[in-house]
C-alpha cells in the first residue's frame, strides 16, 4: 500500500472530522492528541473509520493516544495491520 496515499487519506479525515473553519493548518507531524486537536474520546471514530476502510481490526491495547498522536504514527499503525493481513 502506498504510504503517501494512506497519509493523505488520514490527513483529510482529521481535517474534516476534527478541525474547525478557523483552525491552524496541520501536517503529517502535528501532535493531534497531545496537541489538543483530537480528544481521546473522539479518537474512536477515526479508529472505526480506518478499520472499516482497510478491513482491519486494531486491538484496544494498540489504539493508544500515543499511537494516534500524528498522521505519520497512525499511518505506520494502519500499514502494520494491513501488512499482517497478507
Amino acid at each position: 500500500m502506498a504510504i503517501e496515499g494512506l497519509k493523505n487519506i488520514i490527513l483529510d479525515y482529521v481535517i474534516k472530522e476534527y478541525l474547525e473553519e478557523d483552525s491552524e493548518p496541520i501536517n503529517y507531524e502535528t501532535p493531534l492528541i497531545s496537541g489538543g486537536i483530537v480528544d481521546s474520546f473522539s479518537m474512536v471514530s477515526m479508529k472505526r473509520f480506518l478499520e472499516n476502510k482497510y478491513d482491519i481490526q486494531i486491538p484496544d491495547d494498540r489504539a493508544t493516544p500515543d499511537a494516534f498522536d500524528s498522521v505519520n504514527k497512525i499511518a505506520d499503525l494502519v500499514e502494520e495491520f494491513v501488512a499482517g493481513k497478507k
Partner: protein
Amino acid sequence: MAFSDKTRENYQTALAEIQGAGLFKKERFIHSPQDAEIEVEFPAGAGLRKVINMCANNYLGLSSHPEVIKAAHDGLDSRGYGMSSVRFICGTQDIHRELENKVTEFLGTEDTLLFPSCMDANAGFFEAVLTKDDVIISDRLVHASLIDGIRLCSAMHDTYKHLDMAHLEEKLQLHADKRYKLVVTDGVFSMDGDTAKLDEMVALCEKYDAMLLVDDSHASGFIGKTGRGTHEKYGVVGKIDVITTTFGKGLGGASGGCVSGRRELVEMCRQRARPYLFSNTIAPVIISGILKVMDIITRSTERQDKLAKNAAYWRKGLSEAGFILREGDTPIVPVMLFNAKLAQDVSMGLYDEGIYAIGFFFPVVPQGQARIRTQLSAAHEISHLDRALEAFVKVGKKFDILGKTKQEIIAKYGT
C-alpha cells in the same frame, strides 16, 4: 507521617502552577440571601459591598422567594432535618415520591428518580443502563458531568461537532452495528446559551433507532412556552427518552437533581446507579421547598415571561452599546472578549462599578474565546438592568472595546 514535607512541596508547586497559568479560582463570600442584589465580601476581609448579581443560575428568581422559604420551614417542622439513610433502606419519605411524580408530569415523561445532584444523576446513569456492546454519541460541548458519567461506563464513546446534525447522522451510520445507540446533548449549552435542535435530533434518533438523552439543567422551569424545557421549545415533549436536570438552578437553586424518562431506564437507575444507591438523597427541607417551586411555576407563566423580557432587553442593550455577543435567545448572554486577561480585567472593572459578573476562559471555554457570561433572572427589575448596562458601557469604553470587531479586539489584546 504520610503527608511528608516532600509531598506538601509537590502540591504547593502544583498549586503555584495553577496560579501562574491564571487559572486559580477564588471564592467571593456573599453575606446575604441569593437575589438580584447581594452583599459581597471581596477580596476576603474587605468591607461588604452591595452589587447587582449578573451571574447566578437563579433564572426564575425563586432562590429566596418567601413562599419557598416558608414551605421549607414547614417541611423542616413536619418531616425533620435529615434522613440518615440512603433511599432504599429507610431514606424515602412520601414527599420524595410526591416530587418525583410532579416532575414526571411537568417534564412529560414516564417516571423520575431523584439524585443528590444532577452531577450525580449524570455520573450514575450511563453505567446503570449501558454496556460495552453499546455506543454513546455526544455533542462535543456537553457538560463536564456528562463526560464524567460517560467515562465511568464501558460503552464506546464518540462525539459529533457542536450542533452539527449532518455529523451526528454520519456517526449514527458509523456505529449502526452497536446494540444500543445513545445520543447525548445539553438542552441549553451553559457557556454559549445556544440550544440543541431537539426536533431534528428526535427525527434522527427515530431514523437510526437510537435513544436520546438531554441534560436540561439550564432550561428546566423556563425554556419553552410553559417552561417545561428545551423539548417544549422544539415541540418534542414525550419524545425524549431521558432528561436529566437539576433543582440547583431555575427550580429554586438549592440542590438536587434527577433522571426522568422511560420507565424501564429510570428503574434501572433505581437498581444500579451508584450515586443513588450509596448516598443520601435530597434532604426533606429542600424537597419541601422544591414542591413549592413546582406549584409556583405551574400556576402561572408570569416568572418565565418576565425572564424572557429581561433577557431580550439585556441582549438588545448590550448589542446596541457595541459589545460582541454570542447569538441566542436564552437567559444566558455571553459577552465575548476573546482574551483571558481582558475578561478578568473587565470583570474587576464591573465589580468596581457594583456589578458582579465573572470572566470565563480556557479551559472552561476554548482557547481564544474568553468571555463574561451574563445570566438574567426574573428577580431582576429593569432598573437593575439599566444600572448594569451603564456599568458595562463605562467599562467597555475604558478598555476601548465598544463597536470593535473580534479581529480588532484580538489585535489590541491578543487571544
